[in-house]
């Protein structure tokens, strides 16, 4: 039920994205990719919190949107200052995503 909702909504989002005539200029694709990474991090963080029974709706939603905007904004700022903050964000989010995934896997293993 819960997983079904996720899959359906993801599919709906992908469908909307493909149907809408929105194509970003190539120079902004970098910021979009970092935003997606932040979004993925938030989603896995939310799943982990759900497993740990500390899920808070407001934290999850606000974290999702604020993380996206902050990540893209910081990457943009870094480019303006010629600091590769983009790489820092990739590394930070990448590490967190893998950590969260590992914790999720343990919870799932313990469950079954």
């Amino acid at each position: 039920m819960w997983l079904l909702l996720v899959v359906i909504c993801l599919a709906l989002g992908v469908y909307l994205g493909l149907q809408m005539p929105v194509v970003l200029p190539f120079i902004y694709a970098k910021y979009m990719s970092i935003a997606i990474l932040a979004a993925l991090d938030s989603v896995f963080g939310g799943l982990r919190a759900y497993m740990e029974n500390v899920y808070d709706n407001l934290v999850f939603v606000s974290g999702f949107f604020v993380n996206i905007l902050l990540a893209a904004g910081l990457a943009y700022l870094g480019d303006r200052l010629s600091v590769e903050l983009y790489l820092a964000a990739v590394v930070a989010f990448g590490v967190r995503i893998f950590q969260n995934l590992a914790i999720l896997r343990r919870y799932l293993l313990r469950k079954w």
Partner: protein
Amino acid sequence: MKQEARISIALVCIVLGFMVAVQFKTTAANPGDLSTLRVQDLTLQLDKVSKERDALAEEVASMREQLKEGSEDQAAEVLRQQLAKANLLAGLEAVKGPGVVVTLADSAQPLQPGENPNLYLVHDEDLLKVVNELRAAGAEAVCINEQRLVATSEIRCAGTTILVNTTKIAPPFVIKAIGDPAVLESSLHIKGGWLETLEIWGIKSQVQRVETVEVPAYRGSLAFRYAQPVSTKGTAN
């Protein structure tokens, strides 16, 4: 609480899916960013385009030849003479005669720290000034590194090279000009002239009077797309 969580998960998933789809489309729409292509690929592309250009230039030459043959008709003798004259004036014929050969090479002086290396190179502007001087001194045919200068020729800077007739040329630059050798030479060696200015930066220039110098024909395309003759009496010839 449970209901709220569902709504926010749905919302987040839709947004995430949307972003992924947009990013996917963006990446797919921009596959050929030149700056990320490998040097080898670019070299291959350049090679291909150069070959195409050479082939087209040959085609132009052979077609001009055909045109010449076609116009070798007794009845068209007058026309042919006119055409020959026009070709000569337009720079479509290789010509020879007395003149000067000017050689310009980049400076060999060692660069002092903090100095702009641009000062020691031959620029498009330098070539333009020299050619201008030659023309003012009555040069009838001018070429730079075998690129004939005609009415539509440009001399401009393109990155690290100079374009003449949209062909890249590189130093040393050899400018050949047909005209009165003495007048041409003294026009270049005039006090405060451009060659003297270049001397300061160590740019070597050499002006040589020659008995006969050959200036090649213009090999590019000559087609007017926008300019129309303003005819005053019937159709222009």
